[in-house]
């Protein structure tokens, strides 16, 4: 067996899922598994309990709410990418989703799982931030809305409490001028640096512990990107200029 031992739960409703994650010690939610299962296989994550939300009915809805698009926790990235509604109301979300990994991975991976995972190099958290969207968190205590600007707190850290399930992400209607650009070593890899534009708003990803809003005229100001095997900090700062120019063409 690759993963370390865990107890497996497959709740049939949101209420049941919330009461499980609220009462079990050291539980993790399993959505598309495209980030969590690699961590289990490497034993980098060793949760005592896995709460698989894939058996919850009607949790994969993509629908219009408050003029924008609501994406349920089980809506796969591929469904969002193909959705006529998303193409019409929030084309930036469709364009950004196509840059996440590969189609075969997007057939399982969810938009909400991607946001909850909060990888600093992920495209979708930057889209949520650039558009000023929010997520809905549910627990046995009730439900609350967390705006994008408050949600991402650090590398793979969010405001979600350990008893909270992310039930839905909401992206405002955004039919204005948009762009997304990223540079990565190979197609489908996580970005070394990326930029999302909506109107005059610019959000950067891959260059800070969370996605950040930046000034399009001076996007690198105040940034201290980390260095790794794939890129030095200076190279990332250079890429910030490059991707910003690409989403704000002269």
């Amino acid at each position, binding site marked *: *067996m*690759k*993963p370390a*031992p*865990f*107890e*497996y739960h*497959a709740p049939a409703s949101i209420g049941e899922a919330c009461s499980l994650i609220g009462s079990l010690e050291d539980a993790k939610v*399993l959505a598309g*598994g*495209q980030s969590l*299962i*690699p961590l289990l*296989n*490497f034993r980098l994550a060793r949760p005592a309990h*896995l709460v*698989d939300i*894939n058996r919850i009915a009607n949790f994969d809805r993509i629908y219009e709410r408050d003029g924008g698009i609501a994406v349920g926790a089980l809506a796969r990235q*591929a469904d969002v990418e193909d959705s006529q509604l998303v193409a019409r109301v929030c084309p930036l979300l469709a364009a950004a989703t196509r840059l996440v*990994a*590969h*189609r*075969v*991975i997007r*057939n*399982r991976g969810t938009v909400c799982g991607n946001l909850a995972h909060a990888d600093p190099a992920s495209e979708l958290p930057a889209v949520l931030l650039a558009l000023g969207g929010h997520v809905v968190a549910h627990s046995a205590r009730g439900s609350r809305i967390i705006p994008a600007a408050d949600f991402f707190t650090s590398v793979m850290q969010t405001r979600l409490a350990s008893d909270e399930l992310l039930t839905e992400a909401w992206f405002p209607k955004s039919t204005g001028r948009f762009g997304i650009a990223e540079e990565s070593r*190979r*197609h*489908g890899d996580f970005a070394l640096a990326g930029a999302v534009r909506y109107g005059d708003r610019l959000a950067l990803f891959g260059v800070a512990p969370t996605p950040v809003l930046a000034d399009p005229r001076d996007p690198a100001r105040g940034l201290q990107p980390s260095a790794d095997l794939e890129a030095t900090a200076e190279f990332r700062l250079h890429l910030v200029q490059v991707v910003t120019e690409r989403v704000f063409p002269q």
Partner: protein
Amino acid sequence: MKINGTSYPAPGDPRRLLSDHIRHDVGLTGTHVGCEHGVCGCCTVLLDGAPVRVCLMLAVQAEGHEITTIEGLAAPGEALHPVQQAFHECHGLQCGFCTPGFVMSVVGLLRQNPSPTPEQVDEGISGNLCRCTGYASIRRAVHRAAELTKP
């Protein structure tokens, strides 16, 4: 769960990956395992008709679903599936390690888009790694498969 039309019980241990279940418990070793973290694409099969990586699923999650592996594309002795035929004709394989994953991904790609452009073909196979054939003949095989699939 049904694998290539036959029902199999889910394994008792929830830690069993679907890839290991298909290979070790069911004995269908055509599905290959390379990286076991979603990067190489070798383990791609169809889940309810759409390609997925089985190293990133628990076997218990497949309960109630239909899986098609490379063995399920064409029965022994029968004509090859058009995608298999195209890989054969275009020399889309050398050692064959990556081939089942490529074939299943391409079956999925052509179902989603029967007439892909060259860019869409490249995009469609970008999630699969081949370490020996080289992608030129694989790319040719995908275009040939699209031709063969046309009614």
